[in-house]
């Protein structure tokens, strides 16, 4: 028997929100579907090989020419399986969901890093968001936004948010306290310390969080398909309901290929310019070589000057 009908209370709350905040929900719905539709339109507008070349260039820029080749092969596979359109729809959904989650997560992470009360409140909330079975979010999301891409995206954002907040908080609190003190001791304002010291030094950790956010968002893409969002997820759901092995495997493989691409690219963001094979890395090496050459040229001049002085003294 159910002594404590928590579920019914939440249902009442959901009904109340639906009844009273309809305007807000409508705005969210419009904005989100505009973003996702817009991005998938952009991805599908040019010839598919244009998109593949751009993706390969990005891979080369941040990681290596090997990843670029891998990208061409895996995207080629998607095209060959006839999954290009749903794959791009899924990519659009994941990118928008990831972007929204990051935009919410980073300020929350910064806030909780600087305020113990916020941290104490946020911690159980984040635990809740991460451990609640993701399907459960779909129910109120469908109530709010009806069937389509929007409830899928909202559920995805909620599910993917926590690691973004956690990594941001961890990164900022992990910045060497002496370095922060150095900023304070020279009279920097809290904002200057955040922008000039904490965020730059926490960036690798924050970007690791972004990588996690995007991977979680991708894992939610299939569940979003249940709510009616177009894309690979929808194909998987269809394959399950018709027990179509071939279709299921192909759609699943498409998700895997996109996941690998997104993971490698976002993982490299944290150490931008440090991968020896990447375009950025090559450029960075050239720059530092030129810099060192300039510095040693200056250093060479100094002893010469002092030698001359000595000779003058002898004369």
């Amino acid at each position, binding site marked *: 028997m159910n002594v404590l009908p928590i579920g019914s209370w939440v249902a009442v709350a959901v009904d109340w929100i639906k009844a009273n905040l309809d305007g807000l929900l409508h705005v969210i719905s419009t904005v989100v579907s505009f973003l996702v539709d817009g991005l998938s339109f952009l991805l599908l507008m040019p010839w598919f090989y244009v998109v593949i070349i751009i993706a390969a260039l990005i891979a080369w820029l941040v990681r290596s020419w090997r990843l670029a080749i891998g990208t061409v092969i895996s995207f080629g596979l998607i095209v060959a399986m006839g999954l290009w359109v749903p794959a791009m729809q899924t990519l659009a959904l994941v990118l928008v969901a990831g972007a929204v989650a990051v935009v919410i997560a980073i300020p929350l992470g910064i806030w909780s890093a600087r305020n113990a009360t916020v941290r104490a409140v946020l911690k159980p909330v984040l635990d809740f968001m991460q451990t609640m079975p993701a399907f459960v979010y779909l129910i109120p999301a469908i109530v709010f936004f009806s069937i389509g891409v929007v409830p899928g995206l909202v559920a995805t954002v909620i599910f993917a948010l926590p690691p973004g907040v956690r990594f941001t908080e961890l990164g900022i609190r992990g910045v*060497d306290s*002496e370095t922060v*003190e150095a900023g304070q001791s020279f*009279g920097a304002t809290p904002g200057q310390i955040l922008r000039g010291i904490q965020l730059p030094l926490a960036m690798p950790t924050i970007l690791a969080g972004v990588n996690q956010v995007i991977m979680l968002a991708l894992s939610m893409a299939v569940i979003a398909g249940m709510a009616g969002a177009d894309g690979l997820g929808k194909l998987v759901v269809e394959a399950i309901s018709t027990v179509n092995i071939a279709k299921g495997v192909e759609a699943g493989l498409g998700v895997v290929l996109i996941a690998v691409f997104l993971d490698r690219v976002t993982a490299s963001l944290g150490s931008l310019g440090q991968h020896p094979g990447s375009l950025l890395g090559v450029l960075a090496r050239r720059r530092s070589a030129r810099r060192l050459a300039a510095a040693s040229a200056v250093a060479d*001049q100094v002893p010469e000057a002092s030698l001359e002085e000595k000779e003058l003294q002898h004369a």
Partner: protein
Amino acid sequence: MSETALEARHLFKVFGRNPNQAVRRLKAGETRSEVADAGTAAVIDASFTVNRGEIFVIMGLSGSGKSTIIRMLNGLHEATDGSVLVAGDPITGIPASRLREIRRDRVSMVFQHFALLPHRTVAANVAYPLELKGIGKAERLAKAEEILGLVGLEGQGEKLPSELSGGMQQRVGIARALAADSDILLMDEAFSALDPLIRREMQEQLLELQQKLQKTIVFITHDLNEAMFLGDRIAVMRDGRIVQIGTPEDILTDPANSYVEQFVQDVDRARVLTAANVMERPRPVVSENAGPRTALKQMRDAFMSATYVVGRDRKLIGIVTDRDVVKLIRRGESTITSVLKPATQVVDEDEILMNLFIPAVESPVPLAVADAEGRLVGVIPRITLLAALGPGPGATGEINLPVLPLPQAEVDAILDDGWTAPTAGNTPTTSPTPDAPNEEITR
């Protein structure tokens, strides 16, 4: 010159649940461990003044509260009780924006682990305080380059901090603090993370810089040798309290309690004590007008083979040796000026003992100590120099040994006519000259 730059009045800092209650109880006379239930007392009733242009060292073991104190001097830690005044202006209990202004313009800090911004170049690090002051990019980078030259890092501005060694990184830290152009420099264990050789070099450089710039420096260290070497005055801390404030010599020769005494037991005295601390009354010394017989008598009384000769104003003009004097007596001459040789080893009275060893070994007679005007103010026999380095009371006073060992110079003289100065009467005497006084003492 003794204008106050920085003053701490009855500073308390308690971390923990109930700091104010802890302070009240500490003021009422309870000890640090008795108030442990209310909080951890890091600093208890610390008062001191730092004069303009001096290096004030706060020394203590880890956990003695010295790092907490220095952070209260620029408000990084808020004092639980008491006040800090920077040139007379209180920095405790003022709005955050005013405190930031003071940090920007009047007090800067050097950190133990350098605390450089790793994503910025060396020049941008040095320019950081100027950036916070709102100075334009070109101007602040020019200033940064100038200051990098001051600390010996010219041409390194374009490198990243991680490309420099530890010592060089800390020079960047010092340059950054200097760039702020503040009168007061707080240095929190600034050299503790460096290896010993580099540390010594940095200490010497700091003193050099200080001579040029005349900043007011508060230096935190746990290393007594460093404290003694750098400090004009030293505050010794123990368990949150300042137990003694004084000059390095005060602390060394007159420790306030057994804790300080224990602390100074293994200090490297050679780097702290100066010639003036250990010198003895100049003993074999005669006036330039004195006759050879007086000189010889002086030497015999002092058991020495040579004597210092001073002018009427006590200015050191040279030495004469017993052999030369004996010859003069035999020839029946009445003045000693003809055999006067320049004194080769003369040290300044402010010289630390460390730098006296070589001159003392090279000098055939007790080392002459002269003041700034060149007057002979004392001598240091080798035995005194060695004894001064040993522990124990009276080590720094005059030492009278029952029997003086045979001075090395005389052995040299007998064996090979060792040291004949290039000037005056170069008459080699191989015949055994009267060494009677020395034979007397070696009996």
